[in-house]
């Protein structure tokens, strides 16, 4: 039963607005700094189960799934950390199913060419991306073994399976020859040399009687398509199936070389070979090993090529073909298997769909290649990371451009702080400090100097209350050196067992003066923050 004079009269009024009416018009400025990455979340637990599923005979998990608790609802949820296996599965399934189901023979043969080129590009990606050898002689190796296998098949009746294995052997032999200068030459010298080597092969093949200079290529080699199927739709279907199996084999090879020991050795120190040598990595040795493995694979592809087309023509050595292949891996992005496959898909699609454009379609492909290399750092599959890097840079630029922070949490930091209460605490703290700063005047300080203890004006009481409830670490305190004679100002350590530190070397004769000195220090810190 309170007295009538104690009940509040009228509505609540914000004391801050009363003190500073301009505050009502101020709207907080949200800086455009972006936000955290968005992840798709699966509901429920079960991440431990996923960790148990491995590829046979390896320790690799099928899918990297991370389990966590939702910070708001505390419900169990899962994140797929690496979604690439899912995309590969969808893409390869579509590739395996769509072209045969379409029933379109020309589409099927275009898809076969795509599969062959994609296989070559995957192996080339091993040479350029993994081994870091900028070799342009890829097609030369394929063509040389295709020619060798076709010649052996025509002259000595080599069957198609013999062509593939002989092609692999020829590829190895050719690879050893091509790899010899690679040991001594550096990047660009080697690129130029291999470009010349391709032209050398072309000129030799065009002029050589043995390799069919009169007929424009070698034809009549054995093929893997059985007699019964020749010249039917079944032959095209079988061709696509064989090429697709080869593509899968080359993907496996890429994974085996790039993802296992050799690839990891080479990725250890891509920028600094001397460092790699110093820590005991046989850098050159690993590079040559990758190159030779790739040469064998290219040779096998060459043998397959010769048996698929029942022969080979000198156009495989043409510079346009080489540049087209380079366009494929550049558009996809150098250094990734998906870049090799998708780049090949794009270029082959453009090449086959726009066939009535004539040379203009190659101009278009050249323009796309030029645009890719001018504007992106890693081709199509590097765009994502390049965009993220760009956005991070913009974020930090904006963060740096913020003039005032004052202890408050900026929004982009807020996304990183797990305990959301801390954000609101700091925001409230900043509001209070901004308000208290306006209360500090000379009269207020004079009032405290006259009477450090006892009853004060409302303003001084508010300031002192804020000071009292500050955190203990680095809080100022008074230490009595000799009671009633000498006092000094110290700062508390805030940790048990750690003594307070002396702030300055002034000695105050009375407790009141020491209290006021502490007050002045705190006011100073408040005005500076």
């Amino acid at each position, binding site marked *: 039963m309170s007295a009538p004079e104690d009940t509040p009269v009228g509505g609540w009024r914000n004391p801050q607005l009363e003190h500073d009416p301009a505050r009502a018009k101020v709207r907080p400025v949200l800086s455009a700094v972006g936000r955290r990455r968005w992840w798709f979340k699966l509901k429920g637990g079960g991440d431990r189960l996923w960790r148990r599923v491995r590829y046979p005979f390896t320790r690799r998990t099928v899918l990297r799934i991370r389990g966590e608790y939702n910070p708001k609802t505390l419900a169990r949820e899962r994140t797929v950390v690496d979604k690439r296996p899912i995309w590969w599965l969808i893409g390869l399934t579509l590739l395996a199913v769509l072209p045969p189901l379409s029933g379109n023979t020309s589409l099927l043969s275009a898809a076969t060419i795509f599969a062959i080129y994609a296989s070559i590009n995957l192996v080339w990606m091993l040479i350029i991306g993994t081994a870091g050898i900028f070799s342009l002689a890829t097609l030369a190796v394929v063509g040389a073994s295709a020619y060798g296998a076709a010649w052996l098949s025509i002259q000595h009746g080599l069957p198609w399976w013999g062509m593939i294995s002989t092609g692999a052997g020829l590829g190895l032999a050719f690879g050893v020859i091509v790899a010899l200068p690679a040991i001594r030459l550096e990047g660009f010298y080697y690129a130029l040399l291999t470009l010349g080597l391709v032209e050398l092969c072309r000129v030799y093949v065009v002029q050589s009687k043995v390799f069919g200079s009169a007929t424009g290529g070698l034809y009549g080699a054995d093929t893997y398509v059985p007699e019964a199927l020749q010249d039917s739709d079944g032959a095209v279907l079988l061709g696509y199936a064989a090429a697709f199996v080869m593509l899968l084999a080359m993907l496996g090879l890429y994974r085996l070389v790039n993802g296992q020991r050799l690839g990891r050795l080479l990725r250890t120190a891509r920028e600094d070979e001397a460092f790699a040598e110093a820590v005991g990595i046989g850098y050159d040795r690993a590079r040559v090993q990758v190159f030779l493995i790739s040469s064998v694979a290219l040779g096998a592809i060459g043998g397959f090529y010769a048996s698929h087309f029942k022969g080979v023509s000198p156009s495989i050595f043409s510079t346009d073909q080489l540049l087209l292949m380079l*366009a494929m891996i550049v558009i996809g992005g150098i250094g990734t298997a998906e870049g090799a496959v998708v780049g090949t898909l794009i270029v082959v699609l453009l090449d086959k769909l726009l066939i009535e454009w004539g040379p203009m379609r190659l101009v278009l492909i050249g323009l796309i290649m030029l645009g890719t290399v001018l504007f992106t750092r890693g081709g199509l599959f590097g765009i994502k990371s390049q965009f993220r890097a760009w956005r991070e840079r913009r974020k930090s630029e904006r963060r740096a451009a913020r003039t005032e922070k004052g202890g408050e949490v900026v929004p982009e930091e807020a996304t990183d702080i797990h305990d959301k209460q801390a954000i609101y605490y700091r925001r409230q703290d900043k509001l209070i400090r901004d308000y208290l700063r306006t209360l500090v005047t000379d009269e207020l300080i004079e009032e405290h100097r006259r009477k450090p203890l006892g009853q004060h004006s409302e303003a001084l009481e508010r300031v002192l209350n804020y000071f009292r409830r500050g955190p203990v670490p680095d809080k100022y305190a008074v230490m009595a050196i000799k009671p009633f004679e000498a006092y000094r100002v110290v700062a508390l350590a805030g940790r048990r067992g750690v003594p307070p530190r002396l702030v300055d070397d002034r000695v105050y004769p009375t407790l009141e003066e020491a209290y006021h000195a502490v007050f002045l220090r705190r006011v100073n810190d408040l005005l500076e923050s």
Partner: protein
Amino acid sequence: MIDGYVIVSAVTLASIYGLLAIGISIIWSSLGMLNMAFGFTFAAAGYGAWYAAQQFPDSAAAVLAGGILTGALVGALVCAVAFIPLHDKPNFTVRALIATLAISLLGTQALLAVFGPRVKALPKVFGPKTFELTEDVVITADKLGSVASSIVLLLLVLAWMKTSRRGLEIRAMMQNPEGAALVGIGVRSTAFAVMAVTGALAGLAAVLLSQTYFVSPYSGLLPLIKGLIVALAGGLGSVSGALIAACLLGFVEAATSAVLGGQYVLITQFALIIAILLVRPRGIGGLLDETRE
């Protein structure tokens, strides 16, 4: 077998290869870029000369000027497209290499689309006269003219690089690009000058080679490869090395086609180059990077 004829054709080839190789060499050392679009510059200059010959059928100077001007223009264009946007980006060397390869692809196809696949012949710039040195050595006027004009233009360019302000800037860029930029040499303007001058050299080489071969969209490929391997064997960035290598390879080409036959030319040249590069991995006049630093 090595007679006067071989020597004459060796000197002719050496002078034309020298023009191409020095262009590639200067671009590499001053801009740090391997210009794979040089073949496109070459082919485009050939078409420029052909166009000039259509407009002024009687003037040899117009044909030469048409080739040289087109070459310089295309060189500047390649610079604007491939060098200017990329030169301060990460991984510049590889990206510039790929960009010039892309220009080479699309440029060749554009020439094919515009002018068609049929080859064009240029008029004989130096007339049909012949000179007899000895009884069995006969020099045709176009060989003499090729040698003379390429030597004259090379000397002009080298003198310009030695004496003029712009030449001083280019040589500074060749010695140390960062140092040159620090003392106030504009990278972009110098790049345009370098590319225009080397394009002009390629243009002259195009007109000269088109005296014996035809102008076609793909005619730039073989000169590009020859120029590249000569520059490579001479050591990228070394003018004197490029000259020595041009003489060597010109002689090998002439001797091979006289002794063994035309189809073995590239093989013997490559054997020579691989031998040179295995002994000196940076070419005849090239320095190892550590030595340069």
